């Protein structure tokens, strides 16, 4: 938590059960801390599949429902390409190039 913005960094070798656990925890934490925004950093993520793609979309969905705008930052080119190939363009998710941009935008929108 920084300045009412929750930061979530996704680990390089995160597995499917970890990411589901993260989903649960995120909702709890957002609620408990009254977060005004969420930034999910996936710069460590090198491989994605439809499952991870969907979870990421859901993480953002949870944030939006709890009135905490969610930004996805640091996506690698290969990951972006794979997601597009898989047809997961995540239209509902906001994106930024890096953490700083996301935080700036979150503050501006508040």
């Amino acid at each position, binding site marked *: 938590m920084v300045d009412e913005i929750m930061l979530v960094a996704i680990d390089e070798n995160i597995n499917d059960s970890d990411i589901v656990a993260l989903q649960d925890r995120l909702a709890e934490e957002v609620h408990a801390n009254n977060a005004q925004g969420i930034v999910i950093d996936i710069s460590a993520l090198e491989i994605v599949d439809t499952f991870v793609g969907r979870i990421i979309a859901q993480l953002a969905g949870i944030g939006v429902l709890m009135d905490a705008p969610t930004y*996805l*930052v*640091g*996506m*690698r*080119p290969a*990951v*972006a*390409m794979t*997601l*597009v*190939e898989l047809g997961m*363009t*995540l*239209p509902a998710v906001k*994106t*930024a*190039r*890096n953490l700083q*941009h*996301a935080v700036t935008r979150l503050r501006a929108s508040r």
Partner: protein
Amino acid sequence: MPVRYIHVILDNERELLLKAWGSTQAEEGLIRRDLFTEREARTQTEMLYDALSKGVKASVETDLLDPDAECWDDMRAALADVTRERTKRGVSTAEMAAFVLALKYPLFERLRTTVDDSNGKVLIDAVNQFTRLIDSVSLYTTELCISERDKTIRRQQEEMMELASPVVELWDRIVAVPLVGTLDSMRAQEVMENTLSAIVDKKADIVIIDITGVLTVDTQVAQHLIRTAAAVRLMGAEAIISGISPRIAQTMVQLGVDTGEIRTRSSLRMALADAFRQLDTDVISRIAK
């Protein structure tokens, strides 16, 4: 027996056969003075002739002209040199094959006068063997010509790929991807890769994909553009597609292409102005109006 005859003819009547080969070539219009000099043609012909007669000499023992035998390696090497040299100067594949085949008839002519009439079997045998050899040799040149050409095509393809998708840094945090020519799947993939890695390398926030130079936009090209824009957005940058001419706009609407939330501008200039505005950059002209 038959190979011995061929060997004797090739050995004894070198000058005569070379001349005859030369004149057959000339008759068939194979001496391209615009591409190589007569002297070069003669040297090449002699080189091939000598390699050939060496191979025939080595085959006398077995009395068989086997085109796959090792004794033709020299000949193949010589032929490869000549073929390479000639095709580089623009001699066609058919001309190369005809050049080799042109040796046949002068030799047959000599065979007819050398082998006496009573020995018809030997004569036919010799003709058969020699024909088979020369045919295989001319096939070999053809193959060489084609493989040379394939190599050129492949190289040009690679060069085209490299030329085709440059990413230009226009300003701080603004890059442009000017697309030229046609956009097939392979190039589209390359464009996407280059664009996405430029976002990382150049820290770009705005990517202008300029399609002024794209000749036609069909559904497939549109699909590629939309996908590239989607990937750019996923990485946190924004894509602007510029250079949409009136004609392309019409086609895209007729095709029912939905560009969705992607920003499109008519020219690179408009896109750049848009990018400046978004990044809060002003470009001021110092010249008084």
